[in-house]
Structures are given as C-alpha cells and as structure tokens.
C-alpha cells in the first residue's frame, strides 16, 4: 500500500509540472495554432496523465483526459481547427484536471465532481461544425462520442477495464492485451476495432514518458502500462549515441515541446552538415562493431566537419532537458542545510574575530583563512541549491493575463525578459502573490480597451513586460505596461476625497510623488469594484509584503505612455547584511537594506545640530529636513523629552538615515560599529509582541544582538512628525545624487570604493616586473617609473599570501606622473547610493558610502598617492600639506 502511495505522490508531482507546461503550451498554441510540435506536446502530457490515472484507478480523471485526448488527436490530425472555443475548453480541462489532482492530493481520492458538462462540451467540439467529417480517419472518436455523452457511467467503467484493473468490464475484444498496450490504444481500439491513427501515434509518446518514469526507478511497478512502448524508446536511445543514452529518450518530461532529442545524425542532416546516406553508412559501421560515436565516424569519413558536429552536439544538448543531470531534493532538506550553513558562517566569524585579537600562530591563521574561504564558498553553493529561476513565479502569469484580458475585453501580449534570473525560493514564494496582483492591476487598470488604444494611436494589443535582473547583490523585477498610465490628478483627487492628504500637503508634492500614494492603505482607484482587483487592499498590501521580505517597491508612470513597477528584493532571506550600532552601551543591528546613509554628529555639529520643529526633532541634511527618532527614547532607555538639556547637545553620535514604509527618517544612535552578515533568528513568544524588534542574531563574538525593525521605527517617526513631515521627506527622497565609484577588494574581504574620476586606468602588472627602489616598489609604466602602493599595507589589512604572478592595479595619473594602487581584486563599478559621511574612519579614508546594500569605505586617494610618491603633488603644491596626518609624514620619511 505504501508503494502505491509513493506512486500516487510521484504521479501528482509529475502531473502538476506537466500541467504548468500544458498551460504554457496551450497559450503558445494560441499564437501559432498550426504548430504540430506544440500539439504533440500537449497531447503527450494529457495522454500521460490519462494513462497513469487509469492505472491508478482515478476514473473521473481518466474519463476527462480521455475526451481531451480525443479532441487533441483530432486537432493534431487537422480534422478540426483549433479555434477560440476549443482552446478555452482545453484550458478549462487543465483547470479541472488540476482541481482533481488537488483533491487527490488532500484526500487521496478523486471526490465527486460533475464533469459531464465539460465532457459534453469537449465532445461537441470534436465535430468540425459545417464539414461533415464523420467517418473520416478517426471513427473511434466519433462512435465513442455519443456514448460518452449519453451513458457516461458505462463508458467510464469500460475504459479502466481495458487496463485490467476494474472487474467485470470485459467489453473489448482486446481486453487481454490491454495491460501491455497503452490505454489510449485500447480505448480507441474498443470502438473502432482496428488500430486507429491515435493508437499508432500514441505509442512513441507513451514510450518516452515511460522511460522518464523508469529512470526514477519505477520501471517494475509501471511495467503494466509501459511494457509495450518501451521498445521504440529504447531504439531512440540507441540512436542518440552521444551521451546518456537512457536519459535521452525521456528528455520530454520537463520540456515536452521539444520531445525526445533527435539522434545526432538527424540533427546534422537537418543542419545540412551531412547527408542522410553518410549517416546511414556511419550507423552501419556502428552496428558492425565500431564503438566510436557517430560524430567521430562522420568526421573521420570526411562527411561532416568537426565544427558542424560540435554545433550539432550543442543543439542536441539544448534539446535535452536538465532532468537528466538533476535529482529531486526535499525542500526541507535544503532548508536545514541552509540553517546549518548559517551556523557554520557564525562559527567561522567567531573564530576569525578571535584570531584577529590573538593571532600568534601563523599556521592556525592560515587554516582559519582557508576555513573562512571554504565556508564562504559553501554558503554560496548551498544558497544556489535553493535558487530557482524567477520563471517559476512567472509561468502562471500568461494564463492569468489571458483569462483576465478576455474577461475585461483587452488585448494583451506578455513579454518576459530574464526568465532565468535566479532567486531564493523563499523569496520567490513571498513575491508570487504581490506579482500576480500587480499583473492583474496592469491588465485591469493599466492597459486600455482596444478601441481606446486605437483612438490614442497605439497598437490595439497592449504589452505587459516582465523583466528580471541581478544588480548589486539584489534582484530587480519590473512589471511594466504600455497602458494609460497613472494620472496624478486622479490620484490626488482620490487622496483628498479619502482624507489621506491635505490640500496644503498636496501642493508641495511633485506628480511622481503623488503617484506613490497608491501605496497608502485604503487607496483604490478602480471606478467600479471588479472581482479581480480594486478592493482597496491592493498596492498597500503589495508594498507591505515586499517590505516584509526586506525589499522595496516603487512606481513610475507617465500618462498615456504606461506604468512601471520596480521591485528590489534581496537574493535570500536567510543571511542578510546588517549594520551594528551602539546605544546606551548596547549593540543593535539594523538590516542594511533600510540604511541610506550615516551622518556623524560631532564637534559643533554634535547633537546641538538637532533642531525642534513643533516639538519634533529634525536635522538639516543637505537643505532638507530629516525627521529624527532617538533610539534611546524608542527603547525606553531615556525619557521622551524633546527639550533635552545642554549636556545632550555636546554629546556625539550618529544619525542613521533609514528608509522604510515610504518615509525617510534619521535614527539617532550613540555609535556606528560595523557591517556584518547576520542570520536572523526569531524571538521567543514572550518577546514576539514587541514590534520594534525584527528578531535577534548572534554576532561574531557570540553575543546576542537584537535586530531593529525599521518599519516600526518609521511608524514612530511618522507619529512624532505627522503628515507634514512626510511631505518634507518625500521631497527630500530624491536629493541623493549617484556618483560612480570603483569597488575594489583590498584584502581579507575588505572593500573600498574609489571615486571613478580618480581612476585613470586599470592594469594587471606582472609581479616579476616589480622592482624595489629605496624600499619602495616601482614598475616601468609607459616610459616612466610608476611607484606602487599596496592598499592592504597602507590600510593595515592583512592579505592572503599572494602567490599570483599578476597583481591588479588601479592607476592614478596626473600629467606625466602616475601612481599604481595595488588591490587584491577589482570588483565592480557601482553608483554610490547617497552622500558620504566624512571623517569617520581614521586615516586612509574620506568616509563611507553605501554601494548596493553595503557600506563601503571611500578611499582617500590623495593620501594613498602620497604614500607611494610623497612628491606627487609637489608640482601643484609647493610644500607638503601641513594638514596631512602625522603617520603619513612618517611614512614619507621612511
């Protein structure tokens, strides 16, 4: 019995996959109704489900798929055209099959479901209206059709009977041979008494699906239903001589559209690279005992070129599916693997941070570094096992769009870009619903009805574009339509009507900012509520969900041109970069995604720089007012007192500028410590209710640190500052300018940013070309002597022992003089997301910038250049700058 359950489970998994494929194929068919491959693929899928459901005695399912198969067969034969009605009926069929499978999954049985309506519809569609096709090539279907219609139960009973599982069937003359035969063949055979076209064609199809199963070690169990067709599949496998013979025939499972990969010879002939005769000769040689591969033989005979064979192999490979080289793994297992790797990363961090303090044993340090590298690698690889292409979240969208477009009378084409962009499956799960919602919105509210589009001079068919790509360690998703766009005036009117904003606030907002108000809760634009979207729980829910996984969403729209939603989401949820900060002597972590920039409060700028507007603290940041939240007050560690005394004014500290829930605000903290990758751990039930914490984590030194929830803090900020502040914030959001920087790795994973305008060239220099002159490293570079400075030494970072024969160098040139800054690795050119913070990090740095989602130190290029060549700027400056830090002067003297 247990073995049976296993078979059913496998059947369900396989069928669900097949159904997704089916949806896609059917929609593709709508575009190219004549494609025989697509029809064959659809037929095969339905056929497989039918066969297995008959074997497993799911009679309703079998009955339904049987009719569907008949229809497909007629379509394939060209007996009836594939029109709108037939396609819709087939899509309905897929839905019902899916429903039945779900029922089987949850209850173990098919349940009772009235299929007669759909079966009747499908049966009726077997006839090509207007042409008397009765009596042509498929008498089987014709004669069975009325039977199915009128006496469904009787027909129902006889079909499984052919498979030899239901007692008392025994109608068919071929009942005895049925177990070895495919059920389609027998089903048609009963009616026609002869071998119909369907039966004959079904055989290879059954064969390929049969092998697909047998690869999963079920050969013996499935034998009754696959025994017959096994032979042709095996033939095909023999012929496909290049690789993995057994797998080749089963390649159709995840990618039925392409069917079994063709033998190499056939591919070559198709490509015109060789003649059928040459292939025939090569085949014969193989049969005579030549063990070489067919490509090899052809090349030896001079009947095909090496290039052509290589090319053909690639073609063959692409037709082969990934299934051959993959295994199914339980997601639970991956999750626990991920957890363990998280722990390993923590343990590694702890070890490394201890070693930094007491590194006396070089061998130990080296092993620790090795461990560190391997751990990072492992983390990356394990992360990859959980990665899935975004397509798994997208593949239902064309169907959703089609149904919705039909329903609301739109013509929509879905275009997808970057379908294979991978992201963590937990993230994928989290974005699935918001994505569907946005797509629905785009079709329902975005794209106009055809007549409106025509009047506007646009093509009647609207385009819904989905785009995904990786950038700066994050995944970017765009959903754009070329529809009517969002009219800021309508939004504004609506917002006023709903009291979401005051006229005074509105006056300060720019159109793009007004559009962002669609994310406010209780905002719905639809004039009349449709059953698909427009219930007022729309975009705010999307936003909350996306922010819940540490992502962000925004919208750009132009009236008459269209709307684009941009989602930025983290690659994974398990390990996140976080900024650790100090407050009242304790440490806290803030997820780096919400950190925009850091501002130091020191000297005369200390907390005296905090002003009060209507009792609420604010800070002037680049001419905009930033509302502030004091962390010590938020955590109840200091009394809430806006009029803090003089003592507080001279206290130093930092403002961490955070972005969450549509608002930008500053969190006043005592100290900013560093950035770490952390594993988020949930809090116990006693602390879950405290919303200001998103969880806890364990830092490298083993101490537990609470993770602050930026969204909750943002709400406090909003409560403190009210809507006026929000308006101010929105104006200031755009203030940051993006300056390109070159991100380099200095050593030990430490990264620095170099302003791109300071970079003249990037060079790889042979280590052998480096000479030492007066304790300095120099190379000959473009006819001049170029001094080198190793940034790792300059910045006091340990490097792994460099045994490479080339070093990466960033060249800085002014006039004829150049200096080379030696780095470990050139990383990326990125736009620094916001302004810099000054004089924070001691010598060698100008401050820090946020690049992507990390804080990176901004290199003080001038002092680095001076370290290599103290006289570098002397042409411009008569004497050395007296403000240079003393230790640099010492280095100059050394």
């Amino acid at each position: 019995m247990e073995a049976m359950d296993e078979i059913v489970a496998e059947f369900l998994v396989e069928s669900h996959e097949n159904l997704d494929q089916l949806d896609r194929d059917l929609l593709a068919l709508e575009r190219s109704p004549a494609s025989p491959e697509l029809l064959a693929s659809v037929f095969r899928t339905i056929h497989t489900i039918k066969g297995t459901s008959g074997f497993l005695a799911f009679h309703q399912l079998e009955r339904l798929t049987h009719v569907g198969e008949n229809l497909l067969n007629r379509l394939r034969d060209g007996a009836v055209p594939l029109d709108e009605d037939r396609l819709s009926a087939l899509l309905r069929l897929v839905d019902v099959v899916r429903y039945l499978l779900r029922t089987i999954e949850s209850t173990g049985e098919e349940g009772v479901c009235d299929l007669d309506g759909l079966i009747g519809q499908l049966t009726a569609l077997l006839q090509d209206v207007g042409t008397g096709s009765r009596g042509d090539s498929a008498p089987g279907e014709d004669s069975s059709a009325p039977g199915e219609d009128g006496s469904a139960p009787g027909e129902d009973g006889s079909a499984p009977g052919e498979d030899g599982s239901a007692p008392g069937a025994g109608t068919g003359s071929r009942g005895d041979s049925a177990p070895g035969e495919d059920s389609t063949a027998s089903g048609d055979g009963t009616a026609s008494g002869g071998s119909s076209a369907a039966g004959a064609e079904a055989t290879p199809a059954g064969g390929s699906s049969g092998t697909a199963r047998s690869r999963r070690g079920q050969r013996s169990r499935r034998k009754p239903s696959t025994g017959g067709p096994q032979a042709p599949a095996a033939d095909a496998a023999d012929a496909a001589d290049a690789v993995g013979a057994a797998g080749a025939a089963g390649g159709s499972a995840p990618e039925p559209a392409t069917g079994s990969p063709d033998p190499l010879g056939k591919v070559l002939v198709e490509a015109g690279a060789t003649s059928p005769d040459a292939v025939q000769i090569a085949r014969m040689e193989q049969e005579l005992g030549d063990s070489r591969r067919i490509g090899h033989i052809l090349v030896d005979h001079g009947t095909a070129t090496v290039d052509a064979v290589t090319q053909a192999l690639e073609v063959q490979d692409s037709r082969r599916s990934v299934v051959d080289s993959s295994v199914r793994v339980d997601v639970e297992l991956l999750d626990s693997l991920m957890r363990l790797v998280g722990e390993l990363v923590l343990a590694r961090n702890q070890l490394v941070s201890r070693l930094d303090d007491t590194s006396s044993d070089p061998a130990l340090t080296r092993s620790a570094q090795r461990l560190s590298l391997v751990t990072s690698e492992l983390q990356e690889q394990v992360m990859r096992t959980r990665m899935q292409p975004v397509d798994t979240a997208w593949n239902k969208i064309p169907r959703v769009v089609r149904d919705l477009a039909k329903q609301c009378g739109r013509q929509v084409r879905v275009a997808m870009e970057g379908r294979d962009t991978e992201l963590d499956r937990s993230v994928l799960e989290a974005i699935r619903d918001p994505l569907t919602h946005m797509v629905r919105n785009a079709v329902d509210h975005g794209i106009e009805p055809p007549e409106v589009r025509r009047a506007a001079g646009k093509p009647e068919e609207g385009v819904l574009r989905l785009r995904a790509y990786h950038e700066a360690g994050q995944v970017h998703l765009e959903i754009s339509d070329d529809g009517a766009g969002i009219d800021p005036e309508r939004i504004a009117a609506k917002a006023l009507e709903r009291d979401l904003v005051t006229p005074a606030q509105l006056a300060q907002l720019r159109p793009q900012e007004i559009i962002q108000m669609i994310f406010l809760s209780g905002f719905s634009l639809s004039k009349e509520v449709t059953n698909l979207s427009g219930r007022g729980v729309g975009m705010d829910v999307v936003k909350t969900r996306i922010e819940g996984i540490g992502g962000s969403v925004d919208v750009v729209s132009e009236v008459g041109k269209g709307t684009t939603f941009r989602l930025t989401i983290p690659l994974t949820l398990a390990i996140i970069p976080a900024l650790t900060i100090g407050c009242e002597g304790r440490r806290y972590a803030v997820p780096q995604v919400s950190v925009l920039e850091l501002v130091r409060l020191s000297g005369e700028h200390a907390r005296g720089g905090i002003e009060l507007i209507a009792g609420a603290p604010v800070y002037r940041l680049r001419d905009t007012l930033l509302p502030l939240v004091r962390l010590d007050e938020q955590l109840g560690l200091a009394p809430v007192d806006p009029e803090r005394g003089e003592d507080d004014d001279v206290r130093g500290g930092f403002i961490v500028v955070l972005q969450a829930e549509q608002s930008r605000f500053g969190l006043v903290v005592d100290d900013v410590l560093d950035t770490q990758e952390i594993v988020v751990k949930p809090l116990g039930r006693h602390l879950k209710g405290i919303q200001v914490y998103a969880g806890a984590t364990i830092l490298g030194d083993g101490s537990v640190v609470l993770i602050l929830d930026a969204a909750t803090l943002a709400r406090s900020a909003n409560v403190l500052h009210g809507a006026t502040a929000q308006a101010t914030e929105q104006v200031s959001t755009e203030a940051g300018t993006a300056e390109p920087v070159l991100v380099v790795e200095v050593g030990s994973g430490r990264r620095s940013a170099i302003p791109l305008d300071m970079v003249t060239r990037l060079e790889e220099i042979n280590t052998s070309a480096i000479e030492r002159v007066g304790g300095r490293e120099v190379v000959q570079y473009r006819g001049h002597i170029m001094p080198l400075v190793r940034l790792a030494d300059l910045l006091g970072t340990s490097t792994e022992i460099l045994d490479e024969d080339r070093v990466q160098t960033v060249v800085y040139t002014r006039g004829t003089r150049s200096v080379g800054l030696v780095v470990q690795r050139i990383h990326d050119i990125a736009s620094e997301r916001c302004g810099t913070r000054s004089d924070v990090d001691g010598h060698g740095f100008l401050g820090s910038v946020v690049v992507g989602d990390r804080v990176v130190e901004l290199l003080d290029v001038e002092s680095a250049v001076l370290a290599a060549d103290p006289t570098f700027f002397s042409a411009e400056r008569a004497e050395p700058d007296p403000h240079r830090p003393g230790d640099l002067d010492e280095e100059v003297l050394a």
Partner: protein
Amino acid sequence: MTQLSTFHVGAYLFGVEVSLVQEIVRLPSITPVPLAPPEIAGLINLRGEVLTAVDLRVRLGMHPAPSTQDQVNVVVRLDDEPVSLLVDEIDGVMALDRVPFESTPSTVPERVRELLVGAYTLPDRLLLALDVREVLRIEDARVA
C-alpha cells in the same frame, strides 16, 4: 516516579519536573531586551540558538539579583520552545515518591503561590514544585 530538578531562588528551594529540563548551563553574558516585561532578563546564546531568559527572582516577586551574582540557566522546554529560567543556585535532582505532597501552605506569599503546583515536605525543609506553564505565562501590559 516523580523526579524534580531542584534549585534555590532567594530563600526558597524550588523544583521543576525533570522531564521538562533540557539542560542546566552557566552563561556569563545575557543581552537585556529594552521594552520587555521586567521578568524577562534578556536573551542568551545557547550554542547558536537565541533563548529568552526569565528571571525567576523577578517572576516570584523578589528583588532582582545583584548583577555581580552569577546566576544559572535552567533551560526548560515547553511546547517545543526552550526558555531559560534564571536561578540563584542549582541543588540537584530528587526522587520524591515517598515524600508527602501537600497543597501550598498559606505561609508562602500570594505571588509565589500562584505559580506552584504544591509543596513537598522534606524532613528539614519545604520543596516548592513550580508550575512551569504558569511561570512562563508572562503577560505584558505594554505590548499592544
């Protein structure tokens, strides 16, 4: 067979059912959680797992221990969630089948009595059996 893991808190000897106790561990560092109810001493790192620590002294209405005092974590597992109970000192494990069990005497303060199943009258002293579920039911008025 009833076995209690016993420990001292303040002047009392308490016990919790041995089967609920996952382990007993002395950990130096504890991370306080601002805004948490006063009974919550903070968070501890138990081999990579973050656990909430309940200060039994506070829970039982006593003054918190002076910070210099090294408290012991009795890690109990209830509803599959481990929680640490901070106690002053560990006593041991007692088999109590032959020890008379009584309802909590009225001399025990009200606040403590609510958290007890009853008391075992040992020859020389009283062993108070804690109702762990009750102990961990910490309401917090400040959490909205």
